[in-house]
């Protein structure tokens, strides 16, 4: 089962304990939730924007509603979940700050993963080509990208400090999805996973 999961999702699932109550925002076709339900007996819920994604989830027996994280998170009461997951989605949010604050309100902690825009190859490509950077995680053209709020690891940690958000755990990954040390993480990491909560 785990073989089918994206590497960053495997690392996220390792952060989840058995019998947790989890909300996955932008759960796509439900691979992560399905895995958590089967392997950790997690009580899962999901929000997904695309109809095809929701269809896949419901077919898998998952409880997923079609909705938009930009607007629908406010409807959840405080502390309804133990963990809220936002994987590779924060950069596509209209109001990322609002979304993150909602996540740590409705769940005891939030796991947020995103592509690091300060990755050295992105810097290099942009420096030499002068074109908006593209890679596997960011495959779109500048005019059709849903990723409107890209950030670096440093941006994110600065944001957390400014907003008084506690970072409990952080993982930095290379392009292969392997864990890196903290050394020069803002240049070396291809993507990052943060586990944050209210202070």
């Amino acid at each position, binding site marked *: 089962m785990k073989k089918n999961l994206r590497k960053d999702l495997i690392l996220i699932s390792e952060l989840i304990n058995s019998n947790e109550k989890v909300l996955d925002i932008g759960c796509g076709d439900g691979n992560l939730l399905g895995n958590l339900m089967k392997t950790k007996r997690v009580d899962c*819920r999901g929000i997904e924007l695309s*109809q095809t994604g*929701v*269809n896949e*989830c*419901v*077919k*898998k*027996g*998952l*409880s*997923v*509603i*079609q*909705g938009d994280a930009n607007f629908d998170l406010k*409807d*959840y*009461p405080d502390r*309804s979940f133990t963990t809220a997951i936002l994987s590779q989605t924060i950069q596509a949010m209209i109001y990322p700050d609002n979304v993150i604050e909602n996540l740590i309100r409705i769940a005891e902690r939030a796991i947020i993963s995103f592509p690091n825009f300060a990755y050295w190859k992105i810097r290099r490509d942009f420096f030499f080509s002068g074109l908006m950077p593209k890679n596997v995680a960011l495959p779109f053209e500048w005019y059709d990208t849903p990723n409107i709020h890209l950030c670096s690891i440093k941006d994110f940690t600065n944001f957390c400090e400014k907003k008084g958000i506690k970072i409990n755990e952080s993982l930095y990954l290379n392009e292969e999805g392997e864990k890196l040390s903290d050394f020069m993480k803002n240049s070396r990491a291809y993507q990052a996973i943060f586990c944050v909560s209210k202070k």
Partner: protein
Amino acid sequence: MKLKFETQKITYKDSFKLSSGREIQSCEVAFQTYGQLNKEKSNGILICHALTGDQFCSGINPLTKKKGWWDILIGPGKIIDTNIFFVVCSNVLGGCMGSTGPSTVDPKTGKQYGLNFPVITISDMVKLQVKLINSLGIKKLFAVIGGSMGGMQTLEWASRFEKKVNAVIPIASSYRHSAQNIAFHEIGRQAIMADTNWKSGNYYGSKQKPKRGLAVARMIAHITYLSESALQRKFGRNLQNSKNFSFNFITDFQIESYLKHQGSSFVERFDSNSYLYITKAMDYFDLSFRKGGLTNAFKNNDLSFCFFSFTSDWLFPTSETKTIIKSLNTSNAKVSFVEVKSDKGHDAFLLDEPEFHEILGGFIEGQIIKQGI
């Protein structure tokens, strides 16, 4: 009541108390079952019909000789597979297909109730369904499924009888009837009551029935079941018989002919007084009006829900379903919700909508694994 067709029936001799405080003596429920109840009695599915539906949801309807209203979904090997499930569908209280309603003979007077029939609610309809399910020996249903008014009934089950069901599937429905919906119903009722053959509901003995009024009510209602784009696609401004306008008031347009057909075929199978009573029951329905509001209606609820709405349904728009989901977020319920893209309007839930059927099938499969049948 003498019926022109065969159906299963149970009569409850004890008095049946209604939301209004009035009582019905020896209340009857007419129903159909499809498939076999398993040993554990865990494979029962209750299907709740809409305003003008009946208990013949699958196979051939013996009155109209046409396919049952949800035959596309229910039957051997279909999405609601009667090889696996024991499907129960009952005619609602107030109906005219065998369950007690205004056309039933009042045991006190020996005459049909007419307007002496007490006004009923969705809650009363569901209470009669609960009695039926108990009589069939089912302690907990696998699922309750219904569209439109049937969806209201599924929500009533979820709110009042949450221990008697595992999964609830409300389709193209709402927790209340909106002002616009009530308005359309009132026009329908006024059309019936304006028909001189209606005679304050005492038409059962006479040859002349208030068919004109009921047909108009159906024509109005039918427009609300469709969408502007579906009407345009199907009929446009096409003329019925000739290439030119008739310059009189016979049927010019295809849409006129279609609506007239809808009206005239409906009156052959439906009772005008039943139409008055059932529309009123829908108008009265509002789960949010109860103590504690909508949130309280689903408190401590750990059911599995699967909601469906359709993009072009303006009678029960997606926003209504979303309001219920907001309330359910505060309970422990497991909620799935899909808005299906369709231009067929409210009626989409009855029609061939592959996307809807596929997701419904997926949800049911998930429930089969979860409930272990």
